[in-house]
């Protein structure tokens, strides 16, 4: 049984916050939608497209409130929490709507956006109340930070042991060599010194960065702030690294004791406030998974992605909604698992992408269902960058996607310059996802990254695939 990630005091604080939220939400209900996912999974693009399509009334035929004409208007409202940066929606949209569209910058810190939805309910009592309002708070944070949540239940010694164990398996063993050499050259029981700790921390960070690089695309790389430091860069709470556990208790002046203290400080100063103030207060959750990048890198990256997702999803608090206890304890009652970048595949392969996603999140989905939450898996593209077609090649008909690969993408020795359009066939996804996780097997799959689509002035909203279905699942039931 792992240790609970929160203390009793945290729980009291969370409950107090929830009571406050419930009190202010009596007249205008608020729905907090958490958008999470590992880095480069497409969180920023998802939020931008979601907000844009709701505001402009885009093509969302499967989102019932809009399609039935009951959504009167959506607008951006004032930020509810003064302490949290605002999601830079306008900036991201401007990048996508520029004459030469570019993907927006990725998430570097937590941000939030409140969307006010005014709608007419279709229930029998709607005639008495008239149009109603729902505040949709969208919370966006770097995927890396999520990997920290499991640390809350671990001690320094446990975490160190796990890190050293992970560093022995390929391909990590090769990447970890410089960092391990430095660790061995230092004496953990010597007097603590700042420079030693810095050297160690830098070597450890470089190892993590190497693991994340495209050709390996590994995902399980805590602590998250090492990769995405935010405003804490260089502070002692971010200057530590795992050390082999000593045989007997150590004095408080040793290097080991100092790093242990910093690890605890990291937990209490960085991870726990994030968990308490944001993560534990969500109603709905969407988990974006970029399975295609992991497929590009091979079976090891897939297995790593699977374990990273399992770690993250353990921090969720799923459960059925209950009118009475809901005041004190917020539970995530709906979780949507979304395999993003579905536009990089022909729609006939979406089923198989969803199968892969199902396998990736299997354990978490089962746990959430047991707790009473609803889950669903979807292959979606928040912004659709390609169109579809078929190519006849050697008597075979290949389902292709047509789009402009991003500058720097390469296939079969051809480097693309970011302006030529190609019809692209990424290879067959297998019917059963098993072999994709098997390190012994090789698969010939390649997914290129595509440039964003140019604007089509005839249709409002950004083009997408299945964003409306996701939206219907996440907020549709609250707008009936």
């Amino acid at each position: 049984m792992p240790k609970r990630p929160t203390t009793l005091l945290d729980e009291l604080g969370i409950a107090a916050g929830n009571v406050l939220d419930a009190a202010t939400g009596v007249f205008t209900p608020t729905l907090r939608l958490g958008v999470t996912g590992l880095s480069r999974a497409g969180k920023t693009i998802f939020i931008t497209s979601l907000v844009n399509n709701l505001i402009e009334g885009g093509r969302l035929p499967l989102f019932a409130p809009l399609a039935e004409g009951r959504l009167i208007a959506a607008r951006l409202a004032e930020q509810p929490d003064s302490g949290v940066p605002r999601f830079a929606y306008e900036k991201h949209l401007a990048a996508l709507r520029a004459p030469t569209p570019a993907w927006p910058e990725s998430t570097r810190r937590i941000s939030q956006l409140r969307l006010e939805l005014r709608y007419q309910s279709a229930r029998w009592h709607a005639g008495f109340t008239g149009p109603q309002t729902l505040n949709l708070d969208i919370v966006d944070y770097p995927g890396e930070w999520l990997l920290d949540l499991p640390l809350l239940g671990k001690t320094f010694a446990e975490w160190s042991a796990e890190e050293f164990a992970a560093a022995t398996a390929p391909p990590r063993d090769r990447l970890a060599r410089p960092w391990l050499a430095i660790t061995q050259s230092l004496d953990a029981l010597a007097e603590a010194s700042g420079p030693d700790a810095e050297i160690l921390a830098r070597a450890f960070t470089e190892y993590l960065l190497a693991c994340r690089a495209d050709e390996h695309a590994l995902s399980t790389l805590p602590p998250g702030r090492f990769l995405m430091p935010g405003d804490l860069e260089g502070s002692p709470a971010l200057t530590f690294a795992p050390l082999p556990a000593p045989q007997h208790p150590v004095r408080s002046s040793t290097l080991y004791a100092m790093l242990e203290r910093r690890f605890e400080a990291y937990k209490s100063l960085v991870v726990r406030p994030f968990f308490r103030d944001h993560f534990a207060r969500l109603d709905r959750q969407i988990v974006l998974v970029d399975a295609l990048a992991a497929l590009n890198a091979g079976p090891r990256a897939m297995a790593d992605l699977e374990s990273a997702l399992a770690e993250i999803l353990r921090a969720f608090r799923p459960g059925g909604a209950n009118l009475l206890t809901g005041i004190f304890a917020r539970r995530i009652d709906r979780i949507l698992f979304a395999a993003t970048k579905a536009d990089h595949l022909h729609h006939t392969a979406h089923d198989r992408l969803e199968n892969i996603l199902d396998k990736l999140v299997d354990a978490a989905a089962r746990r959430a269902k047991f707790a009473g939450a609803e889950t669903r898996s979807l292959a979606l593209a928040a912004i659709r960058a390609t169109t579809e077609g078929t190519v006849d090649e050697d008597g075979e008909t290949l389902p292709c996607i047509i789009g402009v690969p991003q500058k720097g993408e390469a296939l079969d020795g051809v480097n693309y310059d970011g302006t030529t359009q190609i019809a692209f066939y990424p290879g067959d996804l297998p019917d059963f996802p098993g072999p994709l996780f098997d390190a012994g097997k090789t698969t010939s799959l390649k997914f290129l990254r595509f440039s964003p689509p140019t604007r089509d002035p005839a249709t409002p909203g950004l083009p997408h695939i299945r964003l409306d279905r996701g939206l219907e699942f996440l907020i549709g039931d609250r707008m009936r």
Partner: protein
Amino acid sequence: MSRSPRRHAEKASRGPAAFDPSKAEIEAAPPATFAEPGMALVDPLTQSELRPRANLVVRAFWGALGLLVSLGLALAAERFLADLFSRYQVLGWVGLGLLAIMSLALAVLIAREIVALLRLRQLARLQEAAALAFAADEIKAARVVAAELSELYAGRADLARARARFDADAPNVFDGAELIRLAERDLIGPLDLRARTLIAVSARRISIVTAVSPRALVDLAFVAFECVRLSRKIAQLYGGRPGFFGFWRLARAILGHLAITGGVALGDSLVQQLLGHGLAARLSARLGEGIINGLMTVRVGIAAMRTIRPMPFLTRNPPNVVEFMVELAKFTAAKEEPPAPTP
């Protein structure tokens, strides 16, 4: 949501490749005929009631009888014409001309009947295909259904806007069940509302006529007449233009449907029966009978709706008798408003 994995032919998995976009065939509209669904519908409950189900012996009987009668008629006509020619040459020519006109008109009538029957058959096929595509969540089959539905209503001015919206949205939907849901909501939904209005108006008219008619025979005849009229109107609304024989098939399907669902409806509307015989009957015996007759019309109307609708009620709730109770209670106001639809 788990979806059925598509079966792929056994072949080595293919690797990635890039092509010149000029080589690519941009995917066009789906074919206008049904793709083989791959499996047969064996469930008699999901099989459309509009499908003719006469057995071979019955068919042989009616076919032979028809041929015999036509032979007799032809012989009689020939004799008659010969008679006319033998009396007066001119009369013979007039008779021949009249016969020619009659046969021409008959041919046109027959052609119309055949078209009407084919239309009913198309609706039956659509019902089955839609149910299958929805159950299997097959995008290919669903697109064929959607294209045919859109085609079915191509000439309808009242659906022009709904159709334009549907045709614009449909290519961006990649899930079979969702596309069927979209079609049911956008294309069939407006028709459902109007069908409800028709049923409500008919039921109210019958209630009033029953309540005020002097003889039981009069209101019985009126009920029969109104039920026939309602069924025809609903069929026209959903795109079936039943001719004479088409209507017989439709009527048989509706009666069959009533027979199947009769037991269920009895339990579901026991309260109303009690109300009809009880509360309203206390006020006036005729009033109670009026309500009962009205409810019967409602049931016929709902059966007609379920029978002729191009797809079964898959994602929307079918109307039930209770919804129309309020309408029936408004004896005085003859406003033609639909009852509130269930979402």
